């Protein structure tokens, strides 16, 4: 069963990715030589920063968690033919909603977490419901409307944070949430929490859902061949609406996991870019939730490793960003994977 969850042309993909990585490292080495630093030392530091000891590995997994959950949110959309670019906004709204429940109400420990997570999920779904409605009712392009919703979400949460719920002092943050709303941490030495397990379970559950349930099959059909699906008696509009809502709900969950598990409060601009990282991770994995686990881990390692890179080498943040971009670019080039005539029937997502 596990084998059937993996993409069919996995071996080929892996070989292509390794080749791509080699090219990226070579290009990166050129950049590093230009700033008079030793490429081997830089790459070794990058690896040490990502996997050097148990704390570093936990740091990598900590970075992976939001990317993974956002990635699963994107996968759900891609499978159903919906390009949800608004995960970033759903993450912000979800994060704020969870924090609000966390600091406003006093509830018993487990219940508090559940209510806060539910609020995050509801906020994410609610935030995408407007673009989703316009998509299925009037055919408004969901890419445009969800991107625009991101700006509103970020500014709206800033407004909430600064004007309505500000913690006194120089901070642009809400008050801290109550300890009863904390997601349990996995280890004593890291902020890594059960959010990672939630993400992993979600990825596997999503993969199983699309693989083994009738609804999952129907959604995949709506995504890849909407006319065929409609002919087969599926309510394409309702399916599309449901897909976007589910995708938004998971996006909101990603934000909730960040505030409840890591930051224990909401701050203005608290996690910029994770929604987009997740989207890229999902696209790299070709919309496969299981594949997204690995691509998210790759992104997480790259991000965590870079943090040590800046401290231990002379490479500046700008250079590190360039190296990161080169690696991502090369990996996404998919050298040996031919999409055209792919047995899955081409790209799953449509604009």
């Amino acid at each position, binding site marked *: 069963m596990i084998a059937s969850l993996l993409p069919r042309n996995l071996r080929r993909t892996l070989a292509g990715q390794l080749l791509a990585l080699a090219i990226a490292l070579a290009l990166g080495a050129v950049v590093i030589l230009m700033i008079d630093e030793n490429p081997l030392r830089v790459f070794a530091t990058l690896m040490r*920063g990502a996997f050097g000891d148990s704390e570093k590995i936990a*740091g990598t997994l*900590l*970075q992976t968690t*939001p990317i993974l959950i956002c990635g699963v949110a994107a996968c759900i959309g891609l499978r159903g033919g919906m390009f949800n670019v608004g995960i970033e906004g759903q993450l912000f709204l979800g994060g704020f909603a969870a924090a609000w429940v966390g600091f406003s109400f006093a509830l018993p420990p487990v219940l508090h977490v559940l209510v806060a997570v539910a609020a995050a999920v509801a906020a994410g779904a609610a935030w995408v419901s407007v673009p989703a409605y316009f998509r299925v009712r009037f055919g408004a392009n969901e890419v445009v409307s969800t991107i625009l919703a991101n700006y509103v979400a970020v500014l709206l949460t800033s407004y909430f944070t*600064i*004007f309505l719920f500000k913690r006194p*002092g*120089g*901070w*642009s*943050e809400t008050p801290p949430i109550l300890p009863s709303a904390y997601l349990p941490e996995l280890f004593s030495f890291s*902020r890594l929490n059960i959010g990672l397990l939630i993400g992993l379970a979600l990825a596997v559950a999503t993969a199983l859902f699309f693989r083994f349930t009738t609804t999952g099959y129907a959604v995949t059909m709506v995504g890849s061949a909407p006319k065929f699906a409609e002919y087969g008696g599926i309510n394409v509009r309702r399916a599309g609406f449901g897909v976007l809502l589910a995708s938004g709900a998971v996006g909101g969950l990603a934000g909730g996991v*960040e505030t409840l598990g*890591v*930051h224990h409060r909401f*701050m203005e*601009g*608290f*996690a*910029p*870019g994770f929604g987009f990282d997740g989207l890229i991770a999902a696209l790299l994995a070709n919309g496969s939730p299981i594949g997204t686990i690995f691509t998210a881990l790759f992104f997480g390692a790259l*991000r*965590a490793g870079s*943090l*040590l890179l*800046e*401290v*231990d080498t002379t490479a*500046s*943040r700008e250079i590190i960003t360039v190296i990161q971009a080169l690696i991502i670019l090369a990996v996404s080039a998919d050298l040996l994977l031919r999409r055209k005539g792919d047995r899955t029937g081409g790209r799953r997502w449509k604009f």
Partner: protein
Amino acid sequence: MKTFARLLAAGIVLAASSLPSLAADKVHVAAISGYFAQGFGVSIVNGLNKAKDDFGIDLKLVDTGNRSLDYEEQFANLAKSGEYDLIFVMGWELVDALQKVSAQYPNQRFIFIDGVLDSKSMIYANFAEEQGSFIAGALAGMVEDLGPSFDKIGSGKAIGFVGGRDIPVIRNFLGGYEQGVKYAAPDVKVNAVFAGTFDDPAKGSELAQTLYGQGADIVYNVAGPTGEGVMQASAAADKYSLGVDIDMCSSAPGNVLASMLKRGDVAVYSIIKDEVQGKKVQPGTRTFDLASGGVEVKLCDDVAAKLPQAIKDKLETLRQDVIAGKITIAKAK
């Protein structure tokens, strides 16, 4: 400025005289912030680089970026090896990560710039912005009091203030400013507004235009990037503005009266100097005020040339009085 030159000279002499011991144990300094590219952050970097040139310290700058998830690891990466004698930190969004890591590495000396926190194990570089703002207020009040006899001044007897957000540190600027006006020109009125954001130049411009429209002739900008708009508005309305943090005379030449400088460079330089000279920097608060040259009001040359000598003399007297403690300025914090 003079104070700084003196500090510098003293530093060079000292560095030269203690060279052998320096080579033996070099001082390692790191600085971490997300603002090294703008305003006050640039001033800090200037001070660090000056210290590097003068004392030959080992300097590491770390840009935090803007992801709050990263901050804690970034601090831990710096503190873990114990390699750095001093780590300078600037930015309130870093505070929680800073306090956590500081508790984890109690022997690591962190210096938080521009604020005072609860933790007893840290060093705080605090600025007496109320003192600088007092002088700025006195200047603005006296110039406004000149009335239409001075270029671009009306007879409204009002001046303005545009703050970023309504937070304690900005209130402290406003408090000093108001006290300065009250002291030097009691019948000039201060109209204060807050933009509610530090990142919206358009709003800053709009608010300043409104203040000018209501008869204010001089507006004090304490609003970070929002304040860029205030400076632009002063040029558009052909009135006066007062800059903050760094020298802003060039942002609207002819329309900027002066800038209230918060000398981040002076603060980091003098702290590093103590450390290099063997006076180990101890936890506690260090206040950088008019006396130590940490805050100062710098007149813009073009306007200063037109300013009556009496006002300049009065400003200098006030400065001396504040330093001598003859005038006490209430803090809003």
